């Protein structure tokens, strides 16, 4: 079981969500985050002159999948979130020990497997 943490452009959230759901991957948790990478920051206008903001708004998508479904999901997300410019984001994959569904008390792969 793996957890995917994908940090993407906020405007790509819908595309990523739709691409994942087309393959039956419905579950995800989405957070507004701020961060920086190669894109660096941005200059914003103040009353006279500018100020720099070093952290840019991004969206973080978290989803947990079985080992076999992980790589396909990564491919889907990369394709859907890509523009080719700096700032497209990063995808991290983490091992997950177990998962439990609160409603049914099921545990293991059955909770995260695509229907």
């Amino acid at each position, binding site marked *: 079981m793996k957890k995917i943490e994908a940090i993407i452009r906020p405007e790509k959230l819908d595309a990523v969500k739709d691409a994942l759901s087309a393959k039956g991957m419905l579950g995800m948790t989405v957070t507004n985050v701020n961060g920086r990478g190669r894109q660096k920051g941005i200059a914003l206008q*103040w009353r*006279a002159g500018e100020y720099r*903001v070093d952290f840019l708004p991004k969206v973080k998508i978290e989803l947990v999948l079985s080992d076999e479904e992980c790589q396909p999901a990564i491919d889907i997300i990369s394709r859907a979130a890509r523009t080719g410019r700096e700032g497209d984001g990063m995808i991290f994959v983490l091992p997950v020990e177990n998962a439990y569904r609160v409603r049914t008390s099921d545990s293991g792969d059955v909770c995260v497997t695509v229907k």
Partner: protein
Amino acid sequence: MNSGDTAWILISTALVMLMTPALAFFYGGMVRKKNLLSTIMMSFAILCMISVLWVIYGYSLAFGPDIKGLTGNFSWAGLIGVGMDPSTIYAVTVPHLAFMAFQATFAIITVALWTGAVVERIKFGALLAFAALWFTLVYCPIAHWVWGSGGWLAQLGALDFAGGTVVHVNAGISALALAMVLGPRKGFKEGETMEPNNIPFVVLGAALLWFGWFGFNAGSALTAGGLASNAFVTTNTAAAAAGFTWMILGWINRRPSLVGAATGAVVGLVAITPAAGYVQPWAAIPIGAIGSIISYYMMVWRSKANKVDESLDVFACHGMGGTWGALATGIFATTAVNPAASGLIDGNWKQVLIQIAAIATTMVFAFGVSWLLAKALKATMGLRVKEEEEAVGLDISQHGENAYGGVS
């Protein structure tokens, strides 16, 4: 007594009252999230405190019977003798109480104006103490000099229709003095980014200031007629010209920003304040536009120099805008608008000199007394919050409140 005049003064009083909470939003939107409430609180608490002090003794000190041109005496303290009948000296067509209330709103906003210089690090108790002392020892005397019957600057012939020197030069230069004694915010010298938390609040505040300013300037005609209408038109025109100019200046530099346009409009309102009832409507355009340019470059210089953390540029906006406005009054005043005033365009160059004298005296007196008061408070009660209180933000550390509570 004239019921039309009375109605207009009462409405104007309410309009100017609204300017102080408007200022609270104007400033509040510009600070970091953690200091939003504390910044709004400064203006709101001053609205409460100065309203009361004005009734107890302030009105008497500023407008009461004159002592040697320098101050009023205490004979109107507690509003003794200030009643429903008109005064024989001020605004003779409206109840004396109405004139008193109108003037109260000017005192309130002037005190609130300089709070923009000290946001995000001043101790709330120290702010109130400074406000009370400054009101008593700086605002009331200067208001008396310029507007009080027998005041020495009024005798000299200084023109200040609605408060260019009394309100704006005064608050702007005092802001500078207080900020210098208080010292910069943590991280200011290091160039730490201090992001404004809510630009819509800034614009909401600026828009309500603009709205209230009709009371400020057109109300200062003290009658409901042609002069008030002239002041009304010059006020709107100057604000618009200045807001547009600032937007263009920002655009030349990089982008036309909303916060810039809003700031420009406020500067235009400041600049037209002393002139509103003395100049023709066309003159409001150069007064607003030039005011914007002066203030803009003052702000650019201030942020490049990075020496004094006069946080929200009260001096650049009000000090410089007010100075330009007071000078411009000496230039553009004409008897065609107001028989009481003629300036350079009427061939009366002496008026410019008188205006300079009024500006200079206000600056020297206000800066000096503010500096001394700030030093005295620093040595006794202390001006700043503790370092960790500043880090956590003044909303929590001074007021125990959070602007946006809850997890979702």
